[in-house]
């Protein structure tokens, strides 16, 4: 198995994510420069957090034109593997139209960095299958533009297809509609989440719930052909 962590100018969680995959989980991982388009050799592609291109204009608005993001379209179409966007990566995926909806400025208009509680809304997915349904987990957030919004019909579809994976529990820190924190696409191979699993992947930093997210993806990839990933 081989994983890629994409590096855009301005990515700042690339090394953190690489560390979890490569050093903690022992997955052969490459830091992949944003100009690279040959991504088919990777079973897992992570778009990490940060401020790609400084988030100028809008978070992810410029990064979506990066060659590597353009290449993701085909990667996803042929169900080659799993794509996970974390924080800025999630923003890029929505900007690129690879995930529905949009991430807008936090309702407080301020950046928020804190650990939040999340509720597992669907545990029958490659990202969440190591959690119980309804389980409350802890993960850090750190974002200024994490308020998820989508048109009513999109929300309806997300709910009907059980594409909403995690919701904020208790406090909704950024004003997301329906407290949405993580979603997947209809193929069940593209995932986006605002919380940072790589920041809670060791006992030093709390429950280690974040590690379970990466472990879940890896186990899923190890046990099934990518084309059978559709689990809902």
């Amino acid at each position, binding site marked *: 198995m081989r994983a890629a962590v994409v590096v855009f*100018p*301005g990515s*700042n*969680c690339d*090394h*953190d994510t690489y*560390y*979890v995959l490569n*050093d903690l989980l022992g997955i052969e991982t490459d830091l992949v420069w944003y100009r690279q388009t040959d991504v088919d050799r990777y079973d897992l592609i992570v778009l990490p*957090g*940060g*401020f790609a*291109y*400084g*988030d*100028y204009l809008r978070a992810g608005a410029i990064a979506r034109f990066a060659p590597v993001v353009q290449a993701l379209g085909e990667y996803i179409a042929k169900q080659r593997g799993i794509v996970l966007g974390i924080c800025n990566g999630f923003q890029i995926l929505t900007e690129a139209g690879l995930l529905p909806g949009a991430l807008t400025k936090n309702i407080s208009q*301020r*950046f*928020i*960095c*804190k650990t939040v509680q999340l509720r597992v809304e669907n545990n029958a997915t490659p990202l969440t299958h190591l959690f119980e349904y309804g389980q409350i987990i802890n993960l*850090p957030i*750190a974002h*200024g533009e994490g308020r998820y919004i989508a048109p009513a019909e999109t929300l309806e579809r997300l709910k009907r297809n059980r594409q909403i994976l995690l919701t904020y529990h208790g406090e909704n820190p950024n004003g997301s509609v329906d407290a949405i924190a993580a979603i997947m696409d209809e193929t069940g191979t593209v995932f986006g989440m605002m919380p*940072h699993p*790589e*920041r809670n*992947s*060791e006992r*030093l*930093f709390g429950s280690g719930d974040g590690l379970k997210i990466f472990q879940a993806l890896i186990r899923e990839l190890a046990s099934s052909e990518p084309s059978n990933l559709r689990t809902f």
Partner: protein
Amino acid sequence: MHGLSEKEYETILKRLGRQPTEVELGLFALNWSEHCSYKSSKRFLKLLPTAGKRVLQGPGENAGVVEVANDWCVAFKVESHNHPSAVEPFHGAATGVGGIIRDILSMGARPIALLDSLRFGEQSRQLFTGVVAGIAHYGNCVGIPTVGGDIYFEEAYTDNCLVNVMCVGLLKRSELKRAIAQGVGNRILLVGARTGRDGIHGATFASEDLIGETAKKRPNVQVGDPFTAKSLIEATLEVCQFPELIGLQDLGAGGLSTAPAEMAARGGVGIAIDIEEIPLREESMTPYEILLSESQERMVLCVKSGSEQKFIRVYRKWGLEAAVIGEVIAERVYRVRHEGRTIAEVPIELLVGGVPEVDSFPSPPSLALSRPNPLAPFPLGEGSGERSWPASLKKLLQTPTIGSKRWVWEQYDHTVQTNTVIGPGSHDAAVLRVKGERFGIAVTMGGNGRYCQIDPYEGGIRAVCEGVHNLVSVGAEPLGITDCLNFANPTDPEVLWAFEQTIKGMAEAARAFELPFVSGNVSFYNQSEQRKIYPTPMVGMVGFVRDIEKRVPMGFAREGDRIYLVGKLEGKSGGSEYLKVFYNFGGGELEPTDLAVERALLQAMLALAERGLLRSAHDVSEGGLLVALAEKSIASGLGAQLELWDLSEETLFGEWPSRFVVTVAPGNEDALKEFVEGAGVPYRWLGVVGGDSLEMSGEKIAVQELVRAYESALRGIIAREP
């Protein structure tokens, strides 16, 4: 407009033997500014101890470096951006963050933590929110966690807010770089952003009082671009691996007028640059403007001749500019050429360090600053309910200086890089792990100006002791100090006296702990027509946590744990927050610190932490003993039954030095006593951890109520946010 004194101009004429050109005058103005030359402070800074067996790099470079363990070293420094932040809080603070990051980068270190010490007036909502937003904007984007610092609100900072930023970087011993130019014919590269008109004369602006016209100098404030900074960090760390890199330096105050000259001075060589090779952001800039620009996100590299393309390729990959702008020459001059014509040529020795030292003499203030404390040690609870200890405690916790800064630090990314084991808000110091290692690094920064206003010598001692206490509280052994000395106009003999006294106090304390000052910064001219700031030394410190699993928490850990006060059991309470809040009195007599007690206390606390005996520890500082106890409750939610020997205001809320509140597990009382008595340190039993309220002498207050008070402290200031 050049801000040079008559005496300085005479010196230039004499040493050059001719009239300087306009461009040369600009060079002198920047290099000889207070900000760059330390001409008023140099002779006092010499009093600070700088040597130590762990010191790899002391003062004189862009940052100090100390060895930690297993070849790992930390580079750290603090710098001020007070003047720019006062006129343009957002960009002023943001570029302050950017500047200190590049200083750390210049040492070949990856920046791993930021800390900010901020001072505002009590009503400075706009400055406060602007500065916080600026720090968040820059620090978050650049991907360095902001893990600590402190904030005070005090009238003295109304016209001159203080924005001091500390950056800590991690490197292996073999990766250490210097800001040096060497080897005749080697190339000088300018990398990073293009050069524009922003920040021209920034350093001279920082070397004047903030009055009238000066306050309107908004165009002197630079504008930062954290995205470019992030790319600059990554690209620079990449080229730091190239053996052809001779030295590198950040372009900060003075831009190209100072940095190449400083590199040449260190290398004992000269440098010639060609103005037309410098990539510009805007057209038709004059050579004078180009040289004096303080455009951000730029660095100068000295690289082996012939290797320049290798360097340029890396910067281009990251979307940055990189251009060969000159070369190292044998003649020890800074030569600036424009289209083949020499437009400035100044001996390096004259430009860097040639400024005549300012020889004004310090003189103590005519009015004695310390006055007796108005507190009579009367018992509490008599008379109005306002004076019951729970009500007094609540009110203190609600003051912006003591209360929670959550609103601030939640806007800072403090968990990026996944090393933050103890972050902001709940401990005396932050603790970072080093991936793959057992040890950790503790960092802290702060300083109490009110103590220095009352007694600068004692205040200086306390500033260092407070840093030591903060580190020791989490179980870290202090390794080294960086400082930023914020003062008013140094031509005022009384200001200079306070400056000298503060340094003497700091030096005395550092010697007692055998701690070196490895880097630092001085910010003068923090005054307006109306007021001067308090003499405010900010002390940044780095400590060594031998085993990160043995770090000590601040909050009460478990029900039944025994609470002790360790250290000095009584003292005067001058300068306390209590006196200010309840008596509107910012003076008083300070209890002098006994450095022998301090040393013994440090040893005892470290021994206790090392043996895993401390369930929790917290140093007693602003707000005094009861506030320290309340903070331990707030941190964990656990209450305590307290049995204090005396319920006077002085005992409960006085601020005298050399004290910790610690807890040990039941059964470990004797072990604690053995260590503490063995070290000759006094101690006292305070009570038992448990329940959900703080109880004492028949009165109590719920921890939840303490939390509410504590968390509402900034409401008065931010509620007015538009």
